[in-house]
């Protein structure tokens, strides 16, 4: 990879991280803690919504966030031709 495409690759990576980490914070600290009281007014399938986010919703979101990250990074690697990964790189 030349310098220009390296920079572009890294910028795409950082952008993806910023988006995913914002969602991460909004769901756990936001929906699960800071906004829990207004959200608890909404009840779905027996769960006050804020309570659900703090007990289960945020955990499910974490799984989805990492899945999206893995999927997007695979695409990004393919796009920049760095999908030839190093194997067995430890000491001989």
């Amino acid at each position, binding site marked *: 990879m030349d310098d220009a495409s390296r920079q572009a690759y890294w910028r795409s990576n950082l952008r993806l*991280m910023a988006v995913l980490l914002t969602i991460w914070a909004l769901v756990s600290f936001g929906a*699960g803690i800071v906004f*829990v009281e207004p959200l608890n007014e909404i009840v779905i399938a027996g769960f006050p919504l804020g*309570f659900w986010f703090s*007990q289960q919703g945020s955990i499910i979101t*974490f799984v989805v966030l990492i899945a999206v990250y893995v999927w997007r990074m695979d695409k990004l690697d393919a796009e920049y031709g760095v999908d030839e990964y190093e194997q067995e790189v430890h*000491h001989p």
Partner: protein
Amino acid sequence: MSDIQLWTLIFAIITFSVYIYIAYASRVSDTSGFYVAGGGIPAPANGAAIAADWMSAASFISLAGIVGLAYNGYAGGVFLMGWTGGYVLLALLLAPYLRKFGKYTLPDFVGDRYNETARFVAVLAAIVVSFVYVAGQMAGVGLVFTRFLNVGTTTGVIIGMAIVFFYAVLGGMKGITWTQVAQYSVLIVAYLIPAVAVSAKVTGVPLPQIGFGKILEELNGLQADFGLAEYSGAFTQISMPNMVLITAALMFGTAGLPHVIVRFYTAKSVRAARYSALWAIFFIALLYTTAPSVAAFTKLQIMKDLNGTTLADAPGWFNTWSDVGLITTASGAPVSELGSSSFGYTDVMINNDIIVLASPEIGGLPAPIVGLVAAGALAAALSTASGLLLVISSSVANDVYYKKINPQASESQQLMVGRIAMACAILVAGYLGINPPGFVAQVVALAFGLAAASFFPILVLGIFWKKTTAAGAATGMIVGLSLTFAYMLWTLPIYGGSEGLFSIPPTGIGTIGMLVNFAVTIAVSQFTKKPSQQMQDLVEEIRYPGRTSLVAQHQAGDL
């Protein structure tokens, strides 16, 4: 021998034989296999191993009890979110880059990226954190053996030590990883079967995550009858700012724990490291989304069972667990003091640790399932113990012996030192399990704060900011660690017992320590000698997953 004992024995023997067979089949003969399984573990297996390593006796045995009983529902969310959210940070900020960097241990990265002082602090922190943890695991093994097989704690711990000794010393990381895959399967099956059975029985919905919603109203009603705060009510136990601080300390601490980070070195490639994180969070989420349901179902059943009952007609599980002193009166006296008067849930004190172990009995499930749960608890404790022991052993053999004492050591010498260190660590862990020091439980919860305040900032900055200097990282780590540690000493009931500042609890101070560490590292890095151009180029290279020359030279030890 009762039915429950018989079934526990059967499941324990079957699972232990499987672990021993796997260990024998995957024995190793080189350091790379011993430390990182030759970097050749496929992602789903590595994910299962990470999950088993991560979910300790505390997650399996205590989590549901902590959420349901000690933290009354909502406040327990700090543990549910805190112990899972860290994986997002690990996956996005650390795992792929540390894997590209290669090498064997967390101190390896710190030492190579910064300097020898930083490596030394990292080795020390890794060993202390791991020993504190492992003592808790051995105590968990003891608890299960005492309760289910009627043998003494000492015998129980010694049996556990012997099993771990066999597969950890023989197979190193390779043996441990494949055993952990088996242990994950045992523990998740043991956790899900009773949860599904109870949910189906009580609500008709076999998915406990959904059934949970159907009983919440009834549970809140019963709580009100007993004069307890609403189960789903927010901030009845912990204030909003403290919820944020404690959750953050657990999340960032998770992303800084040496025994978790090292697992990403065992992945086949950078891509496999990313997938390992995905599989790990998936496997962990299976248990962590079930735990709050188990907490609610069991608490509901306990409250129904103990509502104006007397000792004479108390349910069977009540007698089993009060006999071993894990259920007492609210003031801590033996339950016999209740005499013939009727009592309810709030008149007794139920230990958090029995919720999961007793849930099949409380839910009226048959003896084989109770035995399976016992085997699951043993799997959880043993898998975490072996992962921690490997961190201790590799820190001693690789970071201290090979890097400091004898850099000329041959493969077989290093391997021998690693195995001896492992054997000694097992003996110390066993001793701590039989005679647990009083402060262990306190310190385990605090280990996360310490990890967040020390490792997390310097790892992230070391990867994402090329100009982070060795002096900056060392100062940041020392300031963050000592500030957090001092505050904990000042506020912990057994030491200072002070109110602290702004009523920040000792479990939440790690978040503040982490922010201070970030600030100090960045500030000091402005004024101190920049890393060499070569190091800056190396940091640049670990950001790209493909084959790159500097990283390859570094792996080979030429830099």
